[in-house]
């Protein structure tokens, strides 16, 4: 790991300035992704600004929403009673992530900014358009079992790794930031970017912009939500495919629904097309299957990841059958 300056920020404004002042600077929260990237040489920084001294760890109730501080730890948010009761999909996604030790360290803000596990991205011996724009994407014709089938471009097919992020789209979360240009509220669906021809840009944050928290609106759908994560081993592994669903049923009819997917896309992926198939319809196996087909419409399989297209539809089917009590 290349050496760097270390500074501790005492309040958000200092943090923003200490990073904003210096192009090579970045924040550190849990350090669980940043330090791996720096050890691998996939990222280098000449200044690290420690934000762990900021008072951003609270989980509190607002008017119609739950507010979660950016520095709340994955373990604490996953176990929090209001999160478990009002946003089960978020709690389940968190508790299915990483390991207990990592969850004790890792923050909510850092989780959203974790970078892809694509082996070419993390290996400085490989070309990678995300790491060195214009150098090429070896995954497209290489090892791509873990890669995305949706939201891909000719420049990058790396899958977004966060479970939490997938669950947050399904509950209409809002990201709250404080940056060099003031405060912002960013709807979760607008936060991450598909690679297009700038795969190095993964989200809409500007340099020095600090995530201070999340707002999770309390809705009937969020309260009846579920996360299903399928992986290559029983636990402590990233998703091969995952599904986050939030469902508001009136009788048998779908009043409102959110469907989001992980492991299959270049960013946390919401399918409004699949939601549209369900909304206003009676929830039965035929509509669920139709929603699954809509979710993967336009998917682009590669040599090793075509199986995900089938797998994710079956995962969605299981979640909706369980959530909706459909036999």
């Amino acid at each position: 790991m290349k050496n760097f300056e270390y500074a501790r920020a005492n309040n958000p404004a200092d943090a923003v300035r200490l990073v904003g002042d210096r192009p090579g600077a970045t924040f550190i929260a849990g350090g669980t992704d940043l330090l791996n990237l720096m050890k691998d040489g996939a990222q280098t920084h000449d200044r690290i600004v420690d934000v762990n001294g900021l008072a951003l760890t609270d989980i509190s109730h607002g008017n119609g929403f739950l507010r979660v501080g950016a520095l709340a730890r994955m373990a604490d948010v996953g176990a929090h009673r209001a999160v478990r009761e009002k946003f089960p999909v978020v709690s389940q996604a968190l508790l299915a992530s990483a390991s207990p030790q990592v969850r004790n360290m890792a923050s909510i803000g850092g989780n959203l900014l974790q970078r892809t596990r694509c082996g070419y991205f993390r290996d400085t011996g490989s070309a990678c358009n995300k790491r060195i724009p214009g150098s090429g994407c070896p995954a497209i014709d290489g090892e791509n079992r873990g890669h995305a089938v949706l939201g891909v471009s000719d420049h990058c097919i790396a899958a977004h790794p966060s479970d939490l992020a997938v669950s947050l789209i399904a509950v209409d979360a809002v990201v709250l930031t404080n940056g060099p240009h003031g405060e912002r509220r960013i709807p979760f669906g607008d936060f991450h970017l598909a690679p297009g021809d700038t795969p190095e840009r993964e989200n809409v944050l500007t340099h020095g912009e600090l995530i201070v928290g999340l707002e999770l609106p309390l809705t009937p759908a969020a309260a009846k939500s579920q996360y299903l994560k399928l992986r290559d081993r029983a636990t402590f592994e990233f998703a091969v495919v995952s599904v986050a669903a939030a469902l508001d049923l009136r009788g048998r009819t779908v009043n409102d629904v959110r469907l989001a997917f992980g492991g299959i896309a270049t960013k946390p992926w919401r399918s409004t097309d699949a939601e549209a198939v369900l909304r206003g319809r009676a929830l039965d196996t035929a509509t669920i299957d139709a929603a699954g087909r809509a979710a993967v419409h336009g998917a682009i399989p590669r040599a090793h990841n075509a199986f995900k297209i089938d797998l994710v539809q079956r995962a969605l089917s299981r979640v909706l059958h369980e959530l909706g009590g459909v036999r």
Partner: protein
Amino acid sequence: MPDNSETPKQQHKRRTVLKAGGAAAIAGIAAAHSVTEASAATQAQDAALAADTEASAVPIVLTVNGQARQLRVEPRVTLLDALRERLDLTGTKKGCDRGECGACTVLVDGRRIKSCLTLAVMRQDCAITTVEGLAKGDDLHPVQAAFIRHDAFQCGGCTSGQIMSAVAVIDEGHTGSTDEIREWMSGNICRCAAYPNIVAAVQDAAKEKRP
């Protein structure tokens, strides 16, 4: 009681490496706990270009197993490397150095973390417990005793991490069933696959409460 255990032998000389990589590293900013210090140090950047290894290392105090230990580390030194290479606490193991194996598990303020994924400079105001801090004199911690009773290791490479995680898992109350133990011990990989005996040891130790 402060115990500066840095001996000349342990002060690593890495001038060449640092000159290549750490041009901007300065003691002032590295130690900075206040922003004013940090900005002042930023202005002193030119001076920093000449900074060498010693200048970029910062004095810190780590409280390990109840003892305050003074040392100098570069900001990039992980807690794991500080414990092993500087404080001679080699009970904590380095397996993957990437957060994937759990061999480096320690307790910080009572919570288990992976010491390879945090910087020593970030852990100055914390109470750190390593495997060396569990026994009371010759009295083994109940988890240590249970690991011996159940033969819960083969090569031993993962064992101190398993034990630290087991201490935490019992504290957290995640020992209701073997499935629950397996899930909550899953951050600790055992390449010898001593898992059945590890689970039995955790289950057994969970029955005892330490006074």
